[in-house]
């Protein structure tokens, strides 16, 4: 990796259905804990829906930023507060104006707009507390920038379920361009009636906890959460080593069944990281549990890893969506966060991998990658994560290095 492309992921924070910090979440991921799921009757009329929701109280939005007050930003704030110390360090090092913010989100504050619009339906006027800054995508990034008090560029990336992954790709480029010396990059998405009713209308929501790569899989389970990274050009530490991107020119809400776009993204990330496929030690699958995602992703993984010089086995793979749900616009960076923890927690005996939790019945009709069993350890090395979104937007990331 060229020195001017360095993107050191110096700190990371997260909140999701499994907890309010990485310290809480990591052991639960390794244990295959599915306690973050709950049945909600109030989201889709007449349809109880299982969702992975944040159970802990969220911090209040400060009064001076009340125009950004929405659940999505409160989730972001819960992650942001955990990064206060490393962020103040980079502010001291580089100055406020050299720090940028890039946030991936597909929901922004739409769940609060829903309340405002229901209020309008009932009373003729939008709820008084509603501000457009809560709803618009760009609000999430400016909320973070203003809360921290940094003056570099701040913007939202919204490419559906690849948004969060793309935020890290952009962070690396902002560092390489010399526009920023540090970037706060991540993503946040929150549960609400628009997304739950929307996915329900697409008939892709499972009526039990998502069961990816199973013969019995019946769809995805929605979740919510945020993950933030602090990125710098420091040479040490865990690095964003590779970025691969593609679009599909196929369909607005379904992937190309051949998995060509997914394969192009994975191959692009390997080429960018200058790695052979057999160097990858772990792959965090997109693994939504829909019929089509798992069949196309399985085929793409088999092709990407199957024709390498080693002759072909994919690394151990898991989908973490049976543990934290599909966090949509945040998913790419949520799962990059899990990859970062996999590297950070590695010891002399290698890396312990997050298990693939499903009903244990592989689908003979699809190409199933090697799925991680509980307690699996592998030698330390590069890890990959896949994110594929609506509009046919795909992004694969590779992380590598030792925690500094």
């Amino acid at each position, binding site marked *: 990796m060229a020195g001017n492309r360095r993107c050191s992921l110096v700190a990371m924070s997260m909140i999701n259905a499994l907890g309010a910090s990485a310290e809480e979440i990591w052991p639960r991921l390794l244990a295959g804990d599915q306690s973050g799921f709950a049945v909600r009757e109030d989201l889709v009329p007449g349809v109880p829906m299982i969702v992975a929701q944040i159970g802990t109280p969220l911090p209040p939005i400060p009064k001076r930023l009340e125009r950004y007050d929405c659940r999505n930003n409160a989730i972001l704030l819960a992650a942001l507060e955990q990064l206060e110390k490393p962020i103040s360090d980079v502010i001291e090092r580089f100055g406020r104006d050299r720090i940028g913010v890039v946030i991936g989100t597909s929901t922004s504050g739409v769940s609060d707009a829903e309340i405002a619009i229901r209020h309008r339906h009932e009373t003729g006027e939008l709820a008084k507390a509603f501000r457009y800054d809560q*709803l618009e995508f760009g609000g999430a990034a400016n909320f973070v920038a203003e809360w921290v008090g940094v003056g570099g560029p701040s913007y939202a990336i919204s490419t*559906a379920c690849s948004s969060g992954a793309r935020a890290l790709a952009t962070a690396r480029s902002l560092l390489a361009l010399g526009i920023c010396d540090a970037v706060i990059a991540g993503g946040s998405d929150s549960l609400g009636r628009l997304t739950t009713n929307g996915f329900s209308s697409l008939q892709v929501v499972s009526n039990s906890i998502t069961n990816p790569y199973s013969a019995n899989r019946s769809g995805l389970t929605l979740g919510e959460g945020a993950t933030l990274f602090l990125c710098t050009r420091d040479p040490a530490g865990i690095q964003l080593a590779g970025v691969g991107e593609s679009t599909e020119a196929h369909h*607005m809400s379904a992937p190309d069944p051949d998995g060509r776009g997914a394969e*192009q993204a994975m191959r692009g990330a390997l080429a960018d990281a200058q790695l052979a496929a057999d160097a990858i030690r772990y792959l965090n699958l997109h693994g939504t549990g829909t019929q089509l995602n798992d069949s196309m992703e399985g085929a793409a993984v088999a092709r990407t890893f199957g024709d390498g010089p080693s002759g072909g086995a994919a690394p151990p793979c898991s989908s973490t969506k049976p543990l934290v749900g599909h966090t949509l616009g945040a998913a790419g960076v949520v799962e990059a966060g899990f990859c970062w923890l996999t590297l950070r927690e590695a010891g002399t005996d290698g890396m312990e991998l997050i298990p693939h939790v499903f009903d244990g019945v592989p689908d003979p009709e699809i190409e199933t990658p090697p799925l991680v069993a509980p307690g699996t350890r592998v030698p330390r090395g590069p890890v990959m994560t896949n994110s594929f979104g609506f509009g046919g937007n795909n992004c694969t990331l590779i992380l590598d290095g030792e925690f500094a």
Partner: protein
Amino acid sequence: MIAARVCNWSAWSPGLEDPVAWRQWASNPRELSGEGRPRADFLPAMLRRRCGTLARILLTAAFGCCEDVEISELGSVFASRHGNINESIDLLQRLAEDKPLSPTRFSHTVHNAQAGLFSIASANRQPSSSVAAQQDSFACGYLEALTLLERYPQRQVLLVMGDVPLAPDFASMVDEPAGSYGLALRLEVCTEDDAVTFGIAPGDTPTSRPPWPDAIEFLRWCLSDEPVLTLGRGRRAWHWQRNTAETTAAA
């Protein structure tokens, strides 16, 4: 910083539908109109039916900017302050009325819907991003286009920025010039001599803003002989500077 330049442009707004009209506008600029949409008859009928007004405008600008290149080979960035938020607002109203959602309409509420339709219409499988940044949406879209040039310096990047008026009840909450418009810029890596320099300066924002959108002010600047453009409100300013006397806009 990477050296990049604008190698072509195309724009659409009601009544301003070709380069000649835009050149005349640039010599006598005025507010844009909010009413109207392009025919977009270059799109197959099936696809055109799925395109709302914003998609028609952005795809018209995008295709108009690429007549001399292989459009399927370009990277792309779609920037919009509001994107399809009017569509989300409509669907939220339906939910308030306890009406079911249409799956097709829901899948078009994503901010990258226009990018997805562009990818399908142009058989383009290259990297693509979609951004929003409140009042800085154009400048941040331009910056995002530079990030694609950073990752793929051999590949031209199409930056497409546009908006349509926000739904009533919401429009009054937003300080943004009126009008429906789309601007497409094709950016490429070039030598320092030919470059348009881009930079950010903290706390140094222009005191007055023209009554048309930032993207269109950028186009006006491209068509002028002014050496420097400064945009921005609030915490920072965005600067562009030409390094040559020649116009950066070929069209």
